[in-house]
């Protein structure tokens, strides 16, 4: 074990524990004090952000791979340890999570207020015991806690536990808190009927989400147990510790039979591919994102799904290098399909949120492509991509949420000419969209180009095909913008108010961040690069050399 | 003599076995197949008596007696009482309601029987001591010795079980009257309020020759009135309708009266 267990303050545990405490505290707020609950949740999320920043600062990129490690025995009989540790990738993603949650909470400020008007009657009856607001924010914080700890876990079993537990709060967030847009969307029937239909849609989406991920999780569980058995056979005493296993494999104490390794790899990969999601396991995402409120949708795609891609980097590649190489071609093809397929479907959508969802599928295709291209640029780009995609999708989706909450419809066709009446909203929406189509100067461009270059340098054909994705991205984003924001002003949107202060506070920092990371991503790359190099050394793949040695600047200047 | 009967299966016992075994099996089959519960009960009683005999033949004298006394005597009578309570003549239709139940049941029974027989056939039952030594000090004493030494706890527990069962039975069957019984006045008022059958029910038909509660009385037009028979009998369909023969008797009576009057007239003519 080359890691020093720092006896000092357990920073990582704290980072995960604070939001958990926050969840409990928020849930405990009495029903009448809704606003108090909101502020409490916001405070806790900000505290988490502070902690995450401390982690970010205290992390030395040059240092050893896993830092601020903590390790305690948990279930001694099965060699399960409570083992935390962060490498550059994890640090970046924890920072992203902690950063996004406050915005999500702010954006969802009114999403969980008990509905006025239509069902206030029934609400008044329950208002003593019925506490949707507290529940909403508590669940969000709970998700944050679980995501953070699964970014930190270096023990496979520990990771698995939280990877699965995450589903429970997500399930309730999706199924329990629908879009305020729903009734108006079913304007054909009465609002009540609309509510009805929306509710069924919602529960369908939630159940679908749950079943998909549970299926993946179960297969992974089998693989986890298998891994334990193998280690128990070879090392004498079974273990789940990532570092131990990696070292054992490096030193040759633990050598898996090819078949076994491949099966285990597939077991792990399947779960992550569902979560990521990778074609053809993606169909849960559009329903989930379409039916849930915009903040929750952001939570799904920007935070929770990242666990999947992150786990591919940390577990699939490091635990099963050989199998990863073996599976690479198939996975590359799948991710390629995801890129093109997702983009094409996004073009074909009539529903704003589903459009963003399919766009995300396309982007996840890029991320996985980068991971399995097995080049420094590819994996570095993929990691940046996780962060940037989180921010850009958050920006786009949250603004879309504001838009939807104003008009009360998710259908693109119901909008038009918004730019005229709400220029700021339209502007922010456009910037979010441009980030999504990875315009240079905005953060996603850097990561996308890195992924493309990284892929191209090893698999030129795949790289070229993936490049079509950028054209399609332009297509769906601009079509969306044109249909909603430009053209003659529709009567329904004529009196649409522009962004309010709260909403600006949500969007402006995200956009600023997008610009900053687009112009000066170096801080991020410095953190990420060592981790990526380490991963690649485990897999032992090295960047292909350039064909010719270029003339250096000095002679070039002649 | 019983000692001898204990360990040599004499031809007499064989004869007895073959005859009674048939009886027992037939009885068992009837128990299952009879339409009316009463008949089943009686057939079962017969089978049990046969079994008692077999016990005796097997040297279990005490059990044989107990079998007759407890089973055939007490248990079966209990059964009969319950049958009476429920209704002797209430025959349950043999039409099967559950699809395929009967065939499944038959198959199970048959298969099970085959299995048992096969098992016994395969079992290596070579040893055959007979109860000579065991029953040397008398069968009852032998049992007593075992019961009060080796099986004493089991014995005590079965005692407790019996008591519990008795109490349980009482608790189950006893019905506490929760509300006050209606007084006669209240009943009368209720009758008046509902407005049907205000006066007492009419008495059953009573004739010189018939005097029974199961005969309905006749209405003036000669038809019978169901009301006059207690509803329990009505429910069991045990109403004896004798109105027909009653009318016939009436006719005969009148004719005879005619004849007598005629004779009287003839006697007057002779007197002149």
């Amino acid at each position, binding site marked *: 074990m080359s890691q020093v267990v720092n006896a000092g303050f357990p920073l990582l545990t704290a980072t995960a524990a604070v939001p958990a405490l926050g969840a409990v505290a928020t849930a405990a707020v009495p029903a009448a004090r809704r606003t108090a609950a909101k502020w409490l949740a916001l405070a806790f999320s900000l505290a988490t952000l502070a902690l995450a920043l401390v982690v970010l600062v205290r992390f030395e990129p040059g240092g050893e791979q896993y830092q601020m490690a903590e390790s305690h025995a948990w279930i001694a009989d099965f060699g399960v340890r409570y083992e935390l540790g962060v490498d550059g990738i994890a640090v970046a993603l924890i920072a992203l999570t902690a950063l996004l949650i406050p915005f999500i909470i702010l954006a969802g400020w009114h999403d969980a207020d008990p509905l006025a008007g239509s069902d206030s009657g029934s609400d008044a009856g329950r208002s003593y015991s019925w506490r949707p607001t507290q529940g909403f924010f508590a669940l969000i914080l709970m998700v944050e806690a679980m995501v953070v700890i699964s970014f930190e876990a270096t023990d496979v079993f520990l990771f698995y536990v939280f990877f699965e537990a995450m589903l429970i709060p997500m399930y309730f967030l999706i199924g329990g808190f629908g879009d305020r847009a729903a009734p108006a969307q079913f304007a054909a029937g009465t609002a009540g009927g609309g509510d009805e239909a929306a509710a069924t849609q919602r529960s369908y989406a939630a159940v679908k989400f749950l079943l998909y991920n549970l299926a993946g999780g179960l297969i992974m569980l089998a693989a986890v147990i298998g891994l334990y058995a193998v280690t128990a056979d070879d090392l004498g005493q079974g273990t789940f510790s990532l570092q131990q296993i990696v070292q054992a494999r490096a030193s040759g104490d633990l050598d898996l039979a090819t078949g076994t390794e491949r099966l285990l790899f597939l077991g792990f990969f399947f779960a992550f591919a569902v979560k990521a999601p990778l074609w053809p396991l993606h169909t849960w995402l559009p329903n989930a994102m379409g039916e849930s409120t915009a903040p929750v949708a952001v939570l799904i795609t920007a935070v929770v799904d990242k666990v999947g891609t992150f786990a591919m980097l940390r577990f699939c590649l490091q635990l099963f290098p050989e199998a990863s190489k073996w599976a690479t071609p198939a996975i590359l093809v799948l991710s390629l399909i995801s890129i093109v397929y997702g983009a*094409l479907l996004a*073009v074909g959508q009539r529903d704003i949120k589903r459009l963003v969802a399919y766009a995300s599928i396309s982007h996840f295709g890029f991320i996985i492509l980068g991971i399995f291209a097995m080049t420094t640029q590819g994996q570095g780009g993929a990691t940046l991509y996780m962060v940037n995609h989180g921010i850009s999708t958050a920006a786009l989706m949250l603004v879309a949420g504001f838009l939807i909450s104003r008009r009360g419809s998710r259908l693109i066709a119901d909008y038009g000419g918004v730019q005229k009446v709400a220029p700021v909203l339209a502007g922010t929406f456009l910037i979010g969209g441009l980030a999504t189509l990875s315009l*240079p100067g905005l953060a996603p461009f850097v990561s996308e180009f890195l992924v493309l270059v990284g892929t191209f*340098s090893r698999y030129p054909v795949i790289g070229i095909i993936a490049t079509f994705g950028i054209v399609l991205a332009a297509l769906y984003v601009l079509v969306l913008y044109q249909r909603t924001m430009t053209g*003659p002003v529709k009567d329904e949107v004529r009196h649409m108010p522009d962004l309010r202060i709260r909403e600006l506070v949500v969007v402006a920092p995200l956009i600023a961040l997008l610009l900053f990371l687009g112009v000066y*991503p170096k801080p991020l790359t410095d953190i990420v690069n060592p981790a990526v190099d380490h991963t690649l050394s485990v897999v032992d793949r090295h960047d292909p050399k350039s064909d010719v040695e270029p*003339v250096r600047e000095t002679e070039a200047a002649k | 003599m019983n000692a001898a009967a204990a360990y040599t299966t004499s031809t007499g016992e064989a004869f007895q076995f073959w005859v009674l075994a048939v009886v027992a099996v037939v009885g068992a089959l009837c128990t299952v197949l009879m339409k009316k519960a009463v008949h089943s009960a009686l057939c079962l009683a017969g089978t049990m008596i046969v079994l008692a005999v077999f016990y005796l033949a097997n040297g279990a004298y005490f059990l044989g007696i107990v079998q007759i006394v407890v089973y055939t005597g007490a248990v079966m009578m209990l059964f009969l009482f319950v049958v009476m309570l429920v209704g002797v003549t209430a025959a349950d239709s043999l039409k099967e309601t559950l699809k395929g139940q009967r065939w499944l049941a038959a198959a*199970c029974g048959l298969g099970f029987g085959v299995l048992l027989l096969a098992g016994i056939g395969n079992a290596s039952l070579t040893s055959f001591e007979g109860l000579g030594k065991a029953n040397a000090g008398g069968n009852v004493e032998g049992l007593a010795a075992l019961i009060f030494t080796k099986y004493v706890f089991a014995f005590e527990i079965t005692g407790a079980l019996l008591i519990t069962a008795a109490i349980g039975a009482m608790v189950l069957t006893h019905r506490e009257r929760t509300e006050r019984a209606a007084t006669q006045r209240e009943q009368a008022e209720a009758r008046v309020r509902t407005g049907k059958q205000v006066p007492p029910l009419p008495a059953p038909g009573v004739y010189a020759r018939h005097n029974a509660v199961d005969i309905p009385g006749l209405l003036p037009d000669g038809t019978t009135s169901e009301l006059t028979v207690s509803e329990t009998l009505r429910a069991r369909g045990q109403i004896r309708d004798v109105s027909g023969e009653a009318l016939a008797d009436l006719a005969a009576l009148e004719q005879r009266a005619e004849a007598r009057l005629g004779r009287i007239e003839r006697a007057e003519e002779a007197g002149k």
Partner: protein
Amino acid sequence: MENLIGLLIAAPLLGAAVLLCGGRRLDRVGHWIGCVLAGASFVIGVVLFAHMLALGGEERTLREHLFSWVPVGGFQADVAFQLDQLSMTFVLLITGVGTLIHVYSTGYMEHDERRRRFFGYLNLFLAAMLLLVLADNYLLLYVGWEGVGLASYLLIGFWQHKPSAATAAKKAFIVNRVGDMGLSIAIMLMFTTFGTFAFGPVLASTDRASEGVLTAIGLTLLLGACGKSAQVPLQSWLGDAMEGPTPVSALIHAATMVTAGVYLITRSGAIFNASPDAQLVVVVVGAVTLLFGAIVGCAKDDIKKALAGSTMSQIGYMILAAGLGPIGYAFAIMHLVTHGFFKAGLFLGAGSVMHGMNDEVDMRKYGGLRTYMPITFVTFGLGYLAIIGFPGLSGFFSKDKIIEAAFAKGGTEGWILGGVALLGAAITAYYMTRVMIMTFFGEKRWQPDAEGNEPHPHESPKSMTIPMIVLAFGSVFAGGLFSLNEAFVKWLEPVTSFEHGHSPLSAGAVTGATVAVMVIGVALAWAQYGRRPVPVAAPRGSLLTRAARRDLLQDDFNHVVLVRGGEHLTRSLVYLDHTVVDGVVNGTAASVGGLSGRLRKVQNGYARSYAVSMFGGAAVLIAATLLMRAV
């Protein structure tokens, strides 16, 4: 001195930021902020120019390294600038013309309530364009490349309440994206080949790479150039781009942005020199576009669309020249600059006309305007003479040189290219004369429009006429100045390595031919439009005319093949996703549900059937044990 380069970009960028984030309170002064910052950037450009002149020809390349942008493994992208003679030329053109057009716009956009945002976009464009020409590596160039694309998107769609404008903007961006795809692939190729994509190393080490790779790079670069410079087959967007305000058409879609492709090819000259095949494709594309644009220009009645066709064709000349290699680069750039002057002037003139005619664009509704707006007439006329290559005006010098170089390509190629160039010159003369006559000569043909308000043609305000005058000067004298003992060629030589072409025809002969075809073209146009009155309703026209009115059916092709096909593809995919991919999952779920539903019936609640199952189970168990024993 070097660190002024950053300021060059920073000034307009600042302007864009201030104007776009500033909010309403800047509405009154916004346009002036825009002009001042554009002007500032021009001044900086001039200062740098002076500084550069002071230096010797060799060390005239100024560099500024700001910071390392994306360092990942071998992938080192810096934010660094390189200002050499080529970039300098562009900087002056962009900032100069840009500033003029800013000033012009203050008048042109006076009555638009979103004028502030308009100037914000214009500044944004300047910044991006400067970044494009100042970048010292291809990735940074790509940033500028897409940046100008964005600015053009925003400006084309500036009047976005018009669906046509919004659609045109979208179309422009997406078609450009196709080109950008080519450019990005080129960058990837460079990275995998050379391990870098900075101009210096890449261009210096072309001799070490295989020709196949270089051809691939060249072709992908050309694809990018086609997108940005509206060359066949990616030219379809330029015509629609005229939906934007006229200053935009003048600045972006005539003078600067659309010439970025020429810059790219010239800048990557070393790569093309090393791969004749790529060069051949370039000249072919140039020649085809040259004719294509010219023909389209002949048929359009919309004055701006006619000018757009002309732009396309003129850029075709430049691409053609650039494709000729060292003998053409300098002339390509020279024509680019002169074209920047006169085409901007023409567009501003057209804008001024529209300004006076209630934004009427149909030339058939003009006529005889020379008396109503004399200044416009004169400036427009000078631009006209320049573009048709009237001897002594700037267009003459640059175009003449290109035609000469085309002949100098040598062999049949040379003859063909030269012939095409000459033909193009003739057609240019024809359609420009047509525009001129239909607009300014003949009797007035305008009628009251739907609301019945008669247009009252009037001269535009000073703010608009002054820039037109300045540009007119440029279009008259620029060519001459540049050609004084080949000043321009010498100026560019260190960058683009000039060599004299050996034309089979003598220079004099070429010149004579050029003038001759020009006269023929003018004469034809005069015969057709000058002698008899122009019908207000467009005649049906020949097949070619009708095709040309529809951009030679290129849009129809796109619509049928790409748009319609794409729609079908996406729709079928959506269906597929719903039925097949999702259907599998839902099917499984449904089957499980059905099975359990059937199993539920076993629990019928009848004690006897439970008893049967128990008893049967017991029987099975016994049988099993017996069998075990038996075995």
